Structure formats: C-alpha cells, structure tokens
C-alpha cells in the first residue's frame, strides 16, 4: 500500500516541480517548527524535573523538607555528600563498580568479537550455525530460571566475587553480542582477509591485525551496552556477591533502607553520587553514545 502511494506521490512531485519555476521559490528549506520545539521542551521536563528534585533534596537539611519539596535549599548543606560518602563506603563501592565494569567491557570486546568472527566466517557449517542459534536463543531465557543454580555454582567455585561477576557478564553477554557482531562482520568484505590469508598470515593474526581494527564502530556499540549493563545492574550483583566488601554502587544504597530510612537528604546525596560517574561520561560523549546505540538497533 505504501509503495503504491509513494509512486503516485512521486509523479505528482515531478509534475509540481515542472510547473514550479513559474513562481519564485522563497520558502526556506527547513523552517523551524517552534510550537513543536516548545512542546518537546515541555515533555523533556518529565526527565529533568525528577533530576532537579534529586539535586535540591540532596542539598537540604531534613527540616527543609516541607511541602512538595520543589523549593531551593537555603542554605545548601554540602555535608550531606560527605556523610553519604562515609555511610556507603563510597570509594570502595565505586572502585568495585569500576573494576567490574571496565573488566567486563574489555574482556567482552576481546573475546565476544573473536567468537563472533569464527562463527560468521563458518555460517555455512552446521556446527557453527548451530552454535550461533545456541547463543542467541539464550536471549529468551529469563534470568530467574538460572538464578538459583548459578548462585550455588559460583559459591562452590569461589566465584562469588568481582572476578566471578566479570566472568558472568562476559559469558551472558555472548547472547546479544554475538548477534550484533555477526551482523556487522557479515558486511565486511572478504577480500581483505583473503589477501592476508594468501600472504601466509594465520587466521589468528588475520583477525587481530586485519579484522579487529575494522570493528571500531560496533565495538563502541557493544562497549556502551555492556558498560550500561554492568554499571547499573542490580539483581546479578545482589545474588552473586557474598561479601559486603565486594558490593557495587547500586547495592550499597540499601544502607538507607534500614535504620537511616528517615535520613532522606543524605540518601539523595548518595543516589546522586552513584548516578554521577556514568551521567557525566554520558553528557560528555552524548552524541557518540546515542549513535552507538542506534547502530546496534539497526543491525
């Protein structure tokens, strides 16, 4: 239906274009729709207002928490951040989050891309095609079905720590990442690597010297997805990590649910500190992040 209509439309455009030169073209090509712009700005407040609220609340004293709570703090109480820093053992939690995230991202990029390469260059073989489907089908397995046995397994293997968590992210990431990488690898022309292979390079060298450097854009996509997942994840660290010393930033927010439950202002300071690192990275690299995510979705 749409094709038909577009064809009919094209003819009309052609006719219109042919008759157009009679009158001068003054209409600028891109007029800004200010009403729409205003509407979108108002809609964006749904995102910004909760954040504004978090920032002002984090700077208040408990007795400034009156009414709807949208008023500015006066005077601002910066000590909330120091107290949150202390209560959550922020440096330790942030370091754990950072180690787990960086470890998971780097290992994923190095290993998952290689697995996907081997699969994509052997898709005509039943074994590799089967392996591809095997990994991708895991996308439909909800985590709770494996949760209970995995926790027992990691505890028995003494992987109930940061290292175990990194391993699980890298392994579980295969399901989505192999899918994304294979889609991209199929579009890379074979001539390049065939030239390298005829020159006597091994598959191993060819992958690391020729193919891997070409994976930049899709590595960015996979890296962003993994980074958001590992940094913000809650359920996996909650069930896997056994020692309080290993807790990540989302987990330590639990501190405020117990005896400090009335201390909202300090809690909000802590929430902001947990969100800040990734939000700051995002603000700096916003376009790059969004184009990376878009690339992943089109593949």
């Amino acid at each position, binding site marked *: 239906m749409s094709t038909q209509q577009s064809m009919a439309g094209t003819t009309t455009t052609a006719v219109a274009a042919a008759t157009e030169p009679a009158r001068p073209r003054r209409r600028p090509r891109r007029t800004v729709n200010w009403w729409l712009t205003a509407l979108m700005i108002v809609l964006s407040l749904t995102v*910004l207002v909760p954040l504004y609220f978090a920032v002002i609340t984090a700077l208040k004293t408990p007795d400034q928490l009156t009414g709807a709570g949208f008023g500015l703090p006066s005077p601002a109480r910066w000590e909330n951040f120091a107290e949150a820093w202390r209560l959550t053992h922020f440096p330790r939690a942030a370091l754990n989050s950072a180690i787990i995230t960086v470890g998971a991202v780097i290992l994923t990029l190095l290993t998952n891309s290689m697995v996907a390469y081997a699969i994509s260059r052997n898709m005509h073989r039943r074994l590799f095609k089967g392996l591809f489907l095997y990994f991708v089908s895991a996308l439909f397995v909800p985590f709770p079905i494996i949760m209970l046995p995995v926790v027992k397994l990691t505890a028995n293997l003494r992987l109930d720590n940061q290292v175990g968590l990194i391993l699980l992210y890298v392994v579980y990431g295969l399901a989505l990442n192999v899918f994304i990488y294979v889609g991209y690898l199929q579009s890379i022309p074979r001539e390049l690597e065939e030239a390298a292979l005829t020159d006597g390079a091994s598959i191993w060298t060819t992958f690391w010297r020729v193919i891997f450097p070409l994976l930049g854009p899709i590595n960015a996509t996979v890296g962003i997805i993994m980074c958001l997942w590992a940094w913000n994840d809650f359920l996996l660290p909650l069930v896997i990590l056994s020692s309080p010393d290993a807790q990540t930033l989302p987990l330590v927010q639990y501190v405020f649910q117990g005896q400090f439950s009335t201390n909202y202002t300090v809690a909000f300071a802590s929430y902001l500190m947990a969100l800040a690192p990734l939000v700051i990275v995002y603000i700096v690299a916003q376009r790059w992040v969004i184009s990376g995510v878009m690339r992943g979705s089109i593949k």
Partner: protein
Amino acid sequence: MASVTSRTEQTAAEAGPAPGAVRRRRRGVQLTFYLMVIPAFLLFFIFHTVPVLQGVFYSFTDYAGYGEWNFIGFDNYANIFLDERVRHAYVFTLQFAVVSTILVNVVALAVAIGLNGRIKFRNLLRGVFFLPNVMAILVVGYIFNYLFSYSLPYIGQKLGSATLSTSILANENLAWLAIVVFAVWQAAAFAIILYLAGLQTIPGELYEAASIDGAGAWRQFWSITFPMIAAFFTINMVLSLKNFMMVFDHIIPLTNGGPGTATESISLVIYRGGFQGGDFAYQTANAVLYFVLIVTLSLFQLRILQRREVSA
C-alpha cells in the same frame, strides 16, 4: 556462499605451490576457528546451560537448597497452580507488562516523531530523553519513591483529591500504577532511540509527496510512518514485553512488593522464595513455568506482528 568459498580455495590450490601444503593449511585454519569458539562454548555451557538443566531437574524434587532431596514428580507444578501468592504474582506481572508495553510504545513513538520533526535543539533534546537509560533503575527508583510518597500527596491535598492525598505506593489498588509510570519513564528512553533510528530510514520525499497529494498529518502517519517502521515496532513491542515480564529492579525501591504482596512480580517471588523462604525446588518449578510463558508470549507476539508487517 559455501560454493563460492570452495571455488576460491580451489583456484588458490591450483595456483599455489603444492596441493598438500594448502590442504594442511586449510586444516590449520579450521582448527583455529574451533579453538576460537570452544572456550566460549564451554563457559556458556557451564554457566548458562547447566543451570537451566539443573533448574528443570530440581523442579521435580523437594530440594531446599541444601541437604537431602527426593523426587516428587509434578507436585511442585501442581502446587504452583494452587498457590494464591504465585497466582497473584502472575496476574500482577502480566497486567503490569501489558499496560507498560502499550504505554511505552505509544509515548516513545510520539516523542520520536516529535524529535524527528523540524525542531530546534534536536540533539540536546534527544540527549535529555535518553538520559533515563543511563541511570540505574534501582537508584532512580528511590528518587521516584520519595516523589510518590511525599510530593504527589502534597499536590493531591492542594488539589483536594482524596485518592491522591495519600501515598499511592501505600494504596493496594493503585501502587501498580506508580510502578507503570516509573517503568514507562525509564523504558521510553531506549524505545525513543530505536524509533528515531527507524524514522530516519524513511525518505523525506515520501512526506513531501503525500502532503502535495493533500494527505494530512494523521493520514501520513498511518499510511507512511507506521508501515515504514513496522520492523522497529515489532522489535520494540517484543523487547518491552519481555523486559517488563522480568520486572524486578523497579519494584524493590518503589514498593518492595507491597503493600502486603500486592505488587510482587514473578521474579520477586522466585527471588524471595528461593533465597529467603527455603523453597528452592518449588521456585525453580515456578521459574520453568515463567520461562515457558515468556517464550510463548514472545513467539506469539512475533507471529502476529510480523504478519501485520507483511500485510502492511
């Protein structure tokens, strides 16, 4: 594809130094490919497939997570259907997931169309709308908890609304709506970007042509926009429903399953029963049913939506 590769290899073999050396090299090539995937396969098998099989296995036992166990056949499954708490979790999760999926897709598509229009500050606005996807659900959930518990009731009192003047998180019948609002707020960010990617694949001439033909905005949407992004609509619907069926992170900070057990999702029941209640085997049976439900829903959705894609 296979025939092309083998033909190139054949030519290479004819031109190459000695057929034997080439064959040996080919075997080396194959060996490298296998070495590249075998460790990944083994790890995936140990940490994903084995737990799945174990889960299915334990679901037929009375294993408590420790100690001895016996086979009890389908007793766990039979009990699940009689379990009021589990049944309520399924109803709640399905209701939450369906409503949130529809809302997320309506909201995200509308915002994406707005962002794709002739607006100023497009990149900045796009960046703002994606922001919720960058933040941990759990942490932002605590912020929303405060808004629902204190700010909204205050506004409700000012407006003289009886329902809104108390925290809706403490209201057995309304708490699930608060979770829907938060879930839509959070999930729309990613869906907007996906729809925007879809909208940008539509050539602008289509709209120019349609408007010259006199098609209004509404007509243009149903005749051009919607059919052209059908694949993105399918992906978004399937992903949203699947993710919302697994809801966990949203509920912990907002209601923690309460009031009572009013907002306990299936994941939460499995987590609580399995780790805190000593119902390990029973909850693995629950998880197996849950898995079957999610796969069935996803396949059902894919079939319906893809049929629609083709006919459109």
